[in-house]
């Protein structure tokens, strides 16, 4: 029980964590995850993505300060196919985060108790239809 005078039993043992070894990443581990866990994880990822997008958007808008030429240069990039696909990705992020957010709010306030899976699938259906419609609209005119 003692090794080098230490009472090994009394010491705190290691803790198995999910994630990539660093504590705050624990939510990211996909092993053993079920629907609700994925919903939560993707919500976080889209949330982070949308925050990143927000700053990017503000930076882009600041180009307006550079006058019409600076803005027109940007518009040329903004109408390329790659960029439009990124726009579709953005729409996915907005739809997912928004619809899942509504889902969590409905469950969390107890307005729709115990139906988290049904709400997830309902949101998926609505979101998929909206995403296809948005995608067709964005890419259709390209």
């Amino acid at each position: 029980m003692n090794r080098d005078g230490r009472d090994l039993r009394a010491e705190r043992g290691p803790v198995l964590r999910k994630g990539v070894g660093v504590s705050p990443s624990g939510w990211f581990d996909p092993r053993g995850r079920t629907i609700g866990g994925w919903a939560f994880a993707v919500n976080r990822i889209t949330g982070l993505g949308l925050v990143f997008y927000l700053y990017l958007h503000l930076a882009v808008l600041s180009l307006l300060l550079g006058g019409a030429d600076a803005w027109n240069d940007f518009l040329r990039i903004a109408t390329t196919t790659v960029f439009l696909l990124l726009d579709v990705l953005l729409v996915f992020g907005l739809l997912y985060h928004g619809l899942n957010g509504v889902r969590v709010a409905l469950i969390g306030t107890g307005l729709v108790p115990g139906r988290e899976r049904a709400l997830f699938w309902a949101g998926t259906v609505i979101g998929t239809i909206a995403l296809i419609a948005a995608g067709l609209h964005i890419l259709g005119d390209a």
Partner: protein
Amino acid sequence: MHTAEPIEKVEGPSKVTEIRRFRVFRYKRGDAESHYDEFDVPVGPRASVLDALRWIEVHRDPTLAIRHSCFHASCGTCGLRVNGREGLGCVTFVRDLGTTITVEPEANIPILADLVLDMREFYARFPEQHPVMRASEFLPRAVPPDGMDGYERFEDCIECGLCLSACPIAATTDEYVGPAALAAAQRLVEEPRGADTVDILRWADQPDAVWRCHAAFECTEACPAGVYPAERIMDMRGVLVEGGPRRRAPVRTAAHEGARP
């Protein structure tokens, strides 16, 4: 002397139908790091992961530390992660699993050795008052005998820690009290039996208590005993927001769906 027909005397082990490979997490105090040992285990059609671990302990490695007691999902001591998924070893059946079966201890609680946890930090998260008994909600048309107000039974929670292991928030911080503790607190609010509900709600109304949950519902998925901790957490949020215990019945107790697989 029997009145029933005696069953034939039993010889030998149960019918073995196949050999399965198990990868078992190993760690002893003082080790620099953990490792996995592999064992080929003979199993029968009804073998559980716990049966296989016991076979390893008895026939291959008596130093293997495993935790178990009741063998029927009542004591909650054999909580494990099997192929990454939380479950009780005694009711996780080998026939439902793939070719190689990886067995690890539960996450988020300190390990004592091998697959065994030191549960003190699990219990430390609970509020002072710990619910143990509840009114029995089964067979509502049953009338208890004279001298009894009603039938009673043990609370559903078997303190296995699988909910805490599955929770993605518990993976990021030890400050979060966790689903088991919050579900226990909400049970006390629903059925106080003399407990101080004001004190309980004050304990729950903290950033690292009921408000820390992000509604992943992994705890409810992992729970083998029908506690529905995520639902209990949402109920408790409702209680705190409305300023007191609700009048309508809580959602989805074990009475509605029985114990989960």
